[in-house]
């Protein structure tokens, strides 16, 4: 029994990371109305920036700060100077554009850092395990849960409690209305796109010490982010949270029951949710 409880706890740790990965995708979709296929590549970039900071001798805390900022800056530049010109085109071209971007980023990562994976060790402070009763839990995972929880609260506060959040939510309802009210919607688009990318970058940087880095983690992350938002409902903050934790728990628990099929079970869970709740657990009818 204990092992399952431990796996549920583990699952919450992974799940919070999945939430952080998926929430950016969800918010960007809510406002910009397209799914960013380069989101996985931003996750990849975050992880490799974290790795690079370690290589350059910067400590881990700096890399946690720098990786998301750099990814966000890059995304801002892409949105500001190129992506913007695709908005007027039919929907398919938005997706193709981001697929192309993801391909470019993945190949760029391979040419800079090589095709093989690397490991990153968490800082000394976060190494080791916590023992409480019968539980053994890695400190780093606790740290990840804490950081993602703070980020979740912060994002929630930004979306619900600030003027920017109000504009983003209003923009999700109708971008035309928002721009008619005299707000520069283009600036908001850039900002939200960069914010979404930065959260993916942070998720990548946080995930790097857990799973290592390899050039193909972006595609894997993209698949998982899609599962999370399909389960939780696209464009919904709490949907991403519930979906993320659910996927994390399913994956962890299944890895003790049937380790080979742990990844497979996530997708089966998705198919089951699709059958029962086609718009996701908390999704709005499209």
């Amino acid at each position, binding site marked *: 029994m204990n092992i399952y409880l431990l796996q549920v706890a583990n699952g919450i740790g992974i799940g919070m990371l999945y939430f952080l990965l998926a929430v950016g995708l969800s918010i960007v979709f809510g406002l910009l109305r397209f799914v960013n296929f380069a989101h996985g590549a931003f996750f990849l970039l975050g992880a490799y920036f974290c790795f690079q900071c370690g290589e350059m001798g910067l400590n881990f805390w700096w890399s946690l700060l720098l990786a998301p900022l750099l990814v966000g800056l890059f995304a801002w530049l892409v949105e500001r100077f190129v992506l913007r010109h695709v908005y007027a085109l039919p929907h398919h071209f938005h997706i193709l554009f981001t697929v192309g*971007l993801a391909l*470019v980023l993945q190949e760029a990562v391979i040419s800079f850092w090589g095709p093989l994976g690397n490991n990153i060790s968490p800082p000394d402070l976060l190494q080791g395990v916590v023992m409480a009763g019968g539980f053994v839990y890695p400190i780093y995972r606790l740290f990840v849960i804490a950081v993602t929880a703070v980020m979740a609260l912060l994002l929630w506060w930004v979306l619900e409690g600030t003027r920017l959040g109000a504009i983003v939510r209003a923009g999700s309802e109708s971008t035309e209305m928002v721009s008619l009210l005299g707000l520069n919607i283009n600036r908001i688009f850039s900002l939200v796109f960069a914010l979404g990318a930065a959260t993916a970058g942070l998720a990548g940087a946080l995930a790097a010490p857990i799973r290592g880095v390899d050039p193909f983690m972006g595609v894997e992350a993209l698949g998982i982010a899609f599962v999370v938002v*399909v389960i939780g409902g*696209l464009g919904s903050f709490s949907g991403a949270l519930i979906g993320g934790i659910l996927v994390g728990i399913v994956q962890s628990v299944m890895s003790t029951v049937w380790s080979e099929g742990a990844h497979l079970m996530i997708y089966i869970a998705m198919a089951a949710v699709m059958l029962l709740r086609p718009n996701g657990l908390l999704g709005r009818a499209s």
Partner: protein
Amino acid sequence: MKHFVHFRFTLLAALVCLLLPLLVGSGSLATEVLIFALAALGCNLLLGYTGLMSFGQGIFFGIGSYTTGLALLRLQAPLLPSLLLAMLIGAVVALLVGWFAIRQRGTYFVMLTLAFAQMFYFVAYTMKDLTGGDNGLLDVPRPNLSLFGHTLLATTSPWQYYSFVAIVFVLVFWLLQRVVDSVLGRTLLAVRDNETRAAAIGYDITLLKLTAFVISGAVTGLAGGLHAMMTGVAPLSNIEYHTSEAILIMTVIGGTGNLFASVLGASFYVLIGNWLSTLWPRWLMLLGFLLIGVSLYLHKGLFGVAQAVLRKFGLRPPADTASVKEQHS
């Protein structure tokens, strides 16, 4: 001349099959072009004629490879039955995936096809007894095309196999051209251009989309089967996301809305890829930039470029068979 209008692209496709041996030195490279052209045709039927962007074509390609491989290895089935089985299983899996994914429209649909591509990758990875897991199915044989013990067409050498694939390719191209020129094909265009209106007129949208999906799954499964026979392995990579992505990219680069455009796209992808990968292993990066360029400037892909070039030389280019979309975007 009415018939010629319907046949001209098929003739063009046949011409490509005749020209490829003159342009390409290696039989297996030429075969690969045709195989991926088949896969791109299946993708084009969805994207160009039904408006469905599928990131899951690798599912059917991979399943086709495994089916043919298993039929040849375990059942010692002859050439044609094992390919037909690949088509059948490809169609059945497409029916299943389509039934789930088509319940959603637009963005959700696209995301679901990608999620299913990942799901089937893990299915193939998990079922090691059947698929060989990471190693794939090895030593897939390539029997000759024979009838009652008489060999009709040998497939031993690469160029012999090429001629078999070329016959299959032209046949499938002709059949697909018939499909898109039929009432069904025209109705699919109606679904692509305005789903709500097509539904209001009384068409069963789900059924139409599923039909397109099943045809596409069968064609892509066939391509996968041919690929397994060509390389002698049914590898795990055939069912990976990257295969799905490659098939979609070929289709988009070629141009949608005309079947021949997919032949251009696949030839470009395979031949240029083969050439560039020897010069620079990271050539996919250029492909990414090309995709960005296509989505920004060349919406009609290489086929559109070819049309423009023909027009410049004062020739009347063949019109898109499916250019109704223009006014829309």
